[in-house]
Structures are given as C-alpha cells and as structure tokens.
C-alpha cells in the first residue's frame, strides 16, 4: 500500500485550512455590489395570508427590494418538488401539495418563507423585514402524524385528503398472515423514532449572482450535490437553463443529509438578484436552521415478529406512519419507503415480510433524509424487536440473533434487497470479545453493590449504501440516476487533478481520493488535487449522501484511472520500444518488467503533451473521464454493543463502553473510516439519549435553540472501541461498502437495549433523557 496508498492512515490534507480558519464557505464569498437578504417567515404553524403590505419596508433605510411570492409566480418560478414518485397500494400517485418558494396564500409551518427583503446590510434587511405587514388568518394546526390522520384534523393541502400523502406497502401480506398462523410466539412492540434536527456546524447559506450582460446566474450554496441543485433549479424551478446557471458548493461545514435538498432560499436569492440587479447573499442564523432545515426520522411504528417453536423467525409485520412535515422535500418520499422497508429483513433469514407505510402532512418543518435515512429507523425496529423477543423467549439475545443470521450469500430477502456478501457472526464475535460480554454479569453485580443499574445491549445492523443502480432506482420511482462521474487529468509535469461529482463536506475526500492515485501511479499525494463542488469544473455528478462517495464516487475514479493507466503504458512502451503488456507502474516510474528500462512518470506525462514522439495515431494529452453506475447496493453490516450504568435516583445514563465491529469491505483510509464511525455513533447516541424536536400543540417549535435542543457534547460520549471485519464487496472494483452512516444507523437500538436491560422496563422511548429513564424506573416499581 505504501505510506500514502490504499490502506494507509494518511492525515487529512484538507484539515490544515479547516483548523486554521482558512476554509472558504459560502458566507465567506464576497462579490462586488453584494447585498444582503432577510426572509420574513411565518410565525404561525398554519394560517391563510390575507394581505401583505411591503410599502413601509420599502421606505426603510438601505432597502433595495421587498419581494413576494406573487411576483415570483408571475416570473414563472416553479414550485418545489419531491423527486421520487411513490404510488399508493391502490395504484394512485403520491399526493404532492404545492410548495411555493415564497408562500402566497397559506403558510403551513413556523418558518415558512413569505417575503424576501434585500438591503445594503444584514441589519437593515432585518429591520425592514420587521416593517413588512402581513395579515394572517390563523388556522388550527396539527403536529403529530398520527393525529393528522384522524378525522376532523386540520387539512394542510387540498391535494391530500386526510393529510395522507401515500399509503404504500412492500412484501407479501398473505405469506405473512400464513406465517403468523403457525407461530409459537409473537413479539409485539410499539416504537417511536424521534424527530431530529440536523444541526450542521455551518448553517445554510447562499449567494445568488445574476449577470445581466451574459444573462447568466451563479449560485454559491451550502450543498452536498451542486449538480443536482443545478439540474432541479433549471429543469423544474425554471430559474435558468443549465448552461446559464453555475452552481458552486465551496467548503461546506457538514450536511448529514440536510444539504441535499434545494430549499426556497437558493431559488429566491437567484431570482431576487435578477429582480433587484444586485448580488444577493443570505446566511441562515441558528434559529432559522432549527426551524427550516429539513428534519429527520419522526416515525411511529407497530411491529410484530412471529417465531416457531425453535425460535426461528417465521415472519414480520410492520406498520409505520411517517411524518413528512408541511411539504414534500426532494427525497422525502424515498426515505420511509425504499430506504426503510427494504432493510426490514435485518441480518436475518425471514421468509415473509410485509411493511405498510403511510406518510402524512403536518404543520411542522419538512422531514427528509438525515444521516442513515430510513435505515436507522429500520434497524431500530429490527433490533429493538430482536432484543425484546429474546427477553420474552428467555433466550440470550446473542443466541437468538445468531440462530437467525443469514449465513450464505447472495441472499435474496423478501423486501427487494439481495445481500451480496457478509459475515455477521464475525462482527458479533468480535464485538462480544472486545466488550468482554461474558464478564458482564460480574460487572453488573459489582455495580449493583454501588447502587447503580448496569445494562448491556446490542444491535446487529445491516444497511444499504452505494446508492444506487440507476435502472433499479428508476424503476422504483427515482427521478434521477444515481451513478457518479470522474475525470482524471494528468498535467504535463505529471501532477494530477481528479475531478469528481462527489462532494466533500467533512468526509475527507481530498485525502482518500488522492490515495487511489498514489496507489495506482506511485506519485506522492501532494502531487494530486481533488476538484469538486463546481458545475463549471466538473461536468456532472450526483453528489454525496447515502455513503455513496466511496463505493460509487471512487469506483468512477478507478474507471478513469484504468483508462489513464492504459494510455500511459502505451506511451511508455512506445518511448522504451517495449511491448505495452510488459509495462508496470511502480514508485512513480513506468518500467519494462524484467529489465532495468524505465521512464519516470513525469517524463511520460511530458511526452503526452509535447506530442513529439507518440505512438502513431495517438491523440496528445492525458486526460480521461468515466461514469460509473453500480450494479447493486452495497451492504455494510456490523455489531454494536453498548454497556450503560443508570443512576436509579436521577435516571442519568452513563455509557461505560461502546464497542463497534463493522464490516465495510476493503478500507482506503482506516483513520478516516474510524472518524466516520465515531461521528456516526456520536449522532446515534445523541438520538438515543439527548436529541428530540418538540413542537407544542399550536405548532411552535419548543426546541429552537441549544437551550432546549440537546446536542451531544464531548462529555456525553464515551471512548469508542472500533474494529473492522472484512468481506469485500463483490460488486465494485475496490471491494468497498461505505461507512458514513453506519454509526448513526447501528447505535440507537444498542443504547436503548442496554438501558432497558439495566432498568428492567422495556417501555422506553428515545431520547432516553434522565426524565424519561426516571419515569420508566418509577413505572417499573
């Protein structure tokens, strides 16, 4: 592997600029004549707009423009759409309500954008925003998805009767019914997967610049996928045709899913720039981020699992209601369906599965994919159910899992997915060994003497990454293909630029992707630059989410490297008068195998560009591009074990140890992978113990600041013990599976299984705050 190649713990190249404050984020961008925007947002969760009066605001100092949705519509700017079509089980298409980037008739959640004010300074824009007079007729609001389905509930969109967006199913309900008839035992559980607010370190921001001379737009934005943003804004929102719209996502300070989507602000700032004739910058403040960033999770589920006499799983029935908020965000329909129900087989042989999912409008912020997206919800359902079943059946949770593991591959589940490789027992063994699972009883007894309640819990997760085979997702309703592109440019002196359609917003691509080049050509990582995040530089790409940049993004780079290597060998063979089949590349040199003939890499590159002596008919230059479309999902899997100690007096949970044993297939940079696992588990522990979005009955967000929304701090988290098992992924050239979301997917049920084990009450919802745990302890007494 060399010191910088595949498998090396190369330090992150990008960190120098990040940790010295030299990163360049959207809000750092300054262009001549730039002005500042402030959005007037609805203070009500549900109201009709009776009147908007902008006269006073227009007269305020520094104000350049005060624009409404009426003007936006008049200019032909389209409504925001969801890009994944789901059909209900009766065959009808999902009921997408209109989402105008600026509300014109009705507001549907607190934070809904109504008016944009553009002024010389941020302060002036905000002052003028306060002078905009909007008359609302307040309507009754509904915030819970279950309540929204009840008769008599406030109705959000005329398109969606009873607030129901779709009523979708997957699997074979008849087979499941038959399986349950033969059951010796049925475990039933009601589960809530708590609503989360993403809280990327960098809040969303955008800078829209219209160039009248060229009739051209530039959009700087905090995006995980600038090309998708350009595609959607040109094809659906009618902002500008693609060739007249450049989207740049520079350094982005974390996304976690929330920066996949195209939000009203990008569209409105671009349009407002043309309308006012000045570049328009908007930067979300933290309160706006809490109110308007797409939230995650928010499922209510009833699950039943049937077992035979020997504790083999016979069937699984899942009924889920998913809250999608006030409007359908870009991928909101896919998250609780094809990213959720397709993983409900877990790591287990389950002959029959049926899942029913109803998605619902409520007067809350839109909900969409958030780190893990559907798979944490599926894993929580499966692993809480397995743990509960083991307790009910009086068998060890490890034995019950092991007995039902899928052990031969490929394995076709009843819910679409075909698992291609894995060794679930290996991860379980590793985690049990690291955590000294066998010694737990002793530790529990010792803790009991000190008045503390010890518990241990596990979670054996599997997820689907590397999204996704384009034809497959197309057949399931996706509006886009999910391939990736790459271009490898070898410069005349042999340095290399890799252009990728993936986008790095914390993942360390500039380091990891360069390791592929170093591995292949033996040139130092310092001579390799990764270029991403600009639609003028990279031709096309699908961006970064769903742990896809490794399995899909790097596979595209590998394909392009293959082409570069082939041409480089041809040139070298020609220079050395050797057969190209005899050329090997080692340590930055192209050598004729078995001889001492060699050409340095840079000299070969120079020859490609001087073109003085190339093989006959060969084009000059050395630059190759590739598109890679995966043939299957990838299936990272693993076992997490969490040991906790609960203070019965206060309900406080302390995590004593957290063990992660993951199979990500082959690994390019173990340090970065471990960092991803640490971060993911941190988010999972956050969901399990601390985080939860709360709306009151009227639709006001109670957790709209860090005073009330509890993000994990360093002292809330333990030191993790991580290890990797490896079954290489057979479907991509690097044999990698993806690691970005596993931590957040696998950890919540391990934590809750541990706490419920400690307190002897299985009825505990997330987040397991001290109050929730104390209440559960009281209830069990």
């Amino acid at each position: 592997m060399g010191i910088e190649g595949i498998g090396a713990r190369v330090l992150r190249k990008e960190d120098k600029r990040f940790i010295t404050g030299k990163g360049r984020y959207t809000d750092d961008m300054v262009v001549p004549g730039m002005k500042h925007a402030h959005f007037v947002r609805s203070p009500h969760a549900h109201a009709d707009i009776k009147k908007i009066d902008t006269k006073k605001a227009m007269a305020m100092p520094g104000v350049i423009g005060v624009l409404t949705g009426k003007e936006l519509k008049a200019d032909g700017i389209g409504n925001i759409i969801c890009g994944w079509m789901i059909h209900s089980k009766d065959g009808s298409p999902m009921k997408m309500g209109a989402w105008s980037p600026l509300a014109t008739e009705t507001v549907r959640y607190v934070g809904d954008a109504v008016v944009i004010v553009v002024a010389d300074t941020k302060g002036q824009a905000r002052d003028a925003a306060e002078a905009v007079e909007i008359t609302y007729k307040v309507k009754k609001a509904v915030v819970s998805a279950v309540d929204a389905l009840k008769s008599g509930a406030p109705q959000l969109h005329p398109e969606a009767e009873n607030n129901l967006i779709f009523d979708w199913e997957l699997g074979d309900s008849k087979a499941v019914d038959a399986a349950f008839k033969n059951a010796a035992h049925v475990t039933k559980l009601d589960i809530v997967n708590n609503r989360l607010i993403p809280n990327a370190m960098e809040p969303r921001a955008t800078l829209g610049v219209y160039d009248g001379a060229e009739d051209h737009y530039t959009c700087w934005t905090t995006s995980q996928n600038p090309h998708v943003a350009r595609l959607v804004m040109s094809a659906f929102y009618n902002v500008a045709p693609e060739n007249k719209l450049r989207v740049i996502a520079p350094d982005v300070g974390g996304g976690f899913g929330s920066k996949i989507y195209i939000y009203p602000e990008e569209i409105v700032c671009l349009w407002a720039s043309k309308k006012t004739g000045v570049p328009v910058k908007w930067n979300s403040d933290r309160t706006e981020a809490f109110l308007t960033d797409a939230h995650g999770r928010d499922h209510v589920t009833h699950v039943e699992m049937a077992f035979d006499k020997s504790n083999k799983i016979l069937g699984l029935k899942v009924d889920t209601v998913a809250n999608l908020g006030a409007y359908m965000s870009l991928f909101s329909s896919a998250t609780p369906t094809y990213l959720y129900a397709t993983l409900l087989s877990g790591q287990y042989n389950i002959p029959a599965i049926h899942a029913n999912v109803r998605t619902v409008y409520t007067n809350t912020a839109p909900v969409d994919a958030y780190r893990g997206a559907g798979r944490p919800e599926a894993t929580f359902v499966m692993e809480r159910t397995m743990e509960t079943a083991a307790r009910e059946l009086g068998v060890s949770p490890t034995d019950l899992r092991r007995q039902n593991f899928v052990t031969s591959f490929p394995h076709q589940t009843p819910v679409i997915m075909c698992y291609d490789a894995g060794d679930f027992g290996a991860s379980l063994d590793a985690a049990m060994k690291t955590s000294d699972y066998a010694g737990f009883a002793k530790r529990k007894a010792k803790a009991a003497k000190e008045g503390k309640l010890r518990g241990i819990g596990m979670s054996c997760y599997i997820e689907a990454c590397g999204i996704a085979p384009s034809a497959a997702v197309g057949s399931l309703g996706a509006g886009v293909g999910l391939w990736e592109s790459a271009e490898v440019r070898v410069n005349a002196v042999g340095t290399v630029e890799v252009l990728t359609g993936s986008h790095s917003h914390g993942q360390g691509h500039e380091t990891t992707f360069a390791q592929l080049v170093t591995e292949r050509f033996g040139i130092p990582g310092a001579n390799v630059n990764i270029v991403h995040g600009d639609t003028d530089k990279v031709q096309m790409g699908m961006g970064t989410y769903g742990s896809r940049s490794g399995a899909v993004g790097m596979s595209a780079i590998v394909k392009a490297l293959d082409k570069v290597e082939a041409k480089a060998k041809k040139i070298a063979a020609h220079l050395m008068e050797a057969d190209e089949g005899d050329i090997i590349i080692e340590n930055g040199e192209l050598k004729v195998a078995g001889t001492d003939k060699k050409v340095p890499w840079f000299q070969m590159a120079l020859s490609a560009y001087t073109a003085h002596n190339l093989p006959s008919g060969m084009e000059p230059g050395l630059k190759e591009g590739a598109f890679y479309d995966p043939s299957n999902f990838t299936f990272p899997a693993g076992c997490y074990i969490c040991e906790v100690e609960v203070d019965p007096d206060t309900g406080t949970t302390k995590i004593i140890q957290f063990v992660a044993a993951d199979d990500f297939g082959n690994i390019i940079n173990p340090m970065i992978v471990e960092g991803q696992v640490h971060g993911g588990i941190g988010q999972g522990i956050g969901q399990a113990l601390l985080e939860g979005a709360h709306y009151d009955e009227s639709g006001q967000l109670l957790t709209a600041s860090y005073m009330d929304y509890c993000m994990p701090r360093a002292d809330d988290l333990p030191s993790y013990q991580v290890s990797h098992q490896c079954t290489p992924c057979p479907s991509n050239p690097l044999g990698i599976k993806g690691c970005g979301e596993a931590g957040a997917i696998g950890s919540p049920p391990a934590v809750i299984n541990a706490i419920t084990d400690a307190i002897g009450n299985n009825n505990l919802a997330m987040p397991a705050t001290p109050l929730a745990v104390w209440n559960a302890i009281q209830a069990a007494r």
Partner: protein
Amino acid sequence: MYETNYHRASSVSDAVKLMKKAEDPKLLAGGMTLIPTMKQRLASPSDLVDITRIADLSGIKVSGKTVTIGAATTHFDVSTNEKLAKVCPALCALASHIGDPHVRYRGTIGGSIANNDPAADYPSALLAMGATIITDKRTIPADKFFKGLFETSLKDGEIVTAIEFTAPAKAAYSKFPNPASRYAMTGVFVVKDKDGVKVAVTGAGEGGVFRHKGLEAALDKKFDAASVDAVKVDAKGLMSDMHATADYRAALIKVMTKRAVAAAA
C-alpha cells in the same frame, strides 16, 4: 441587535449619572444573558452602561469569616480565589460549574443575582448563607432580594456593588444540570451553621429560588443524608417543562439535598 449606545462607567456614581441621562438604559456586566437577548432582538435598551471596568466593583475580600465579593467579580475569579476556598469552598465549587470557561471568564456574580434567572446557581448559595446584597443605596438581605422569576427587589437604576456573607461552618452545593442548557434543573445549596441548617433550592421552583423548611427541619435534627429520606417534598409549586416534570424535580430536590449533605458533612 438593534442600535444601542455603549457607555463605559468609570465609577459607581458615574454609572448612576449615565443611567439617569439615558432613555431606556440597561446596566451591562458580563452580558451573558443580556447580549444574547439583544442579539435575538428580544431586548432593545437605548443605552448600555458597562460597569465591569469600575475597579471598586471587582475583587474578593476575606476577613476572618466575613467574605465580601465585588459585584463585577467573574465566576472564574470566584471559583479560583484561594482565600475564599479556605473559608467557603462550596461557593468556589458552585462557580466552577457555571456555564463553560467562556461564560466563567465574563459572567459576574452581581449580574447573575440581579438577573435572578430561576435556574441560576448563585441565588441558592446567597439565600442559604443568608448573604447581604449591597447596592449603591442600601443593603438588602438575600431573603428579601430574590422576588420571583427574573425579579428582585432592586429599584430602577439601583446598582449592586457587592455581596457580603459570613462563611458557614459547613456548606455544599449539588446541581443536576439540564442536559441541553446545563443550567440547574434542580440545584440545592445546603448550609450547616450555629443557627441551624438551611436548604435553598434553585432551578425547580415556579417562583424561583426558595428554602425548603421540611428538609431544614429534618436535617436540623440530624445532619445526615439519611434524614432526607423521610421528608416529603411536594411537587406543588415546582416547574414542569419538557425537560423535567414537577414530580421529577421533587425527587431531584431530595437526591441533590442528600448529595450536598454528604459533601458538606
């Protein structure tokens, strides 16, 4: 933040003068509550009168058992003062857990008690120790000073200049922080002195900081954590919110009292 005029007072009398001249002024000490509130546009004072540079207002004097702390003394200085640590380590410990290092370097004891946040730590210590609050006009005993949520007996423009108390024989503070804000969700300051035991509770009461007579009576009989077990702490009058119900706070009052007693004994 709306526009405001900033003044740096050179003395207490200068501060009083500046306050009188302004239309809708606010005193600015550490600004740990005021500035974020202004940034959110929830407060819009016409003038800010900064009193943190007035030399007389900062510093800690210990004379025998008598402690005098200037109003503009930071939490950091209270938490690390060696003389104070000798006579009243409980107050140093309390100050060392307020907010985070940034807050402790800027936030002041005078600002904290004048704001009287129901979840602030200092009010419980001052009430339990029977401290005296000294202003530019008068002295106010702690039990007359703290009135309710964010409410004190301070008059408009009155400036807290110092806090004075006699260090108790035994004292300790035990706090259960709100998981999100890390303010006290329930904090109990226990004092045992020659005139008996005092138990002051912050973070829990609907009316702000209060003394719990039942706990005091039980601990007066025997100053031992076990004495708390038999005391009934009523949930009535306690705050209930998404982080803690009144019942839970009632339970926490007992647990925190026991821990404070154990630490003080």
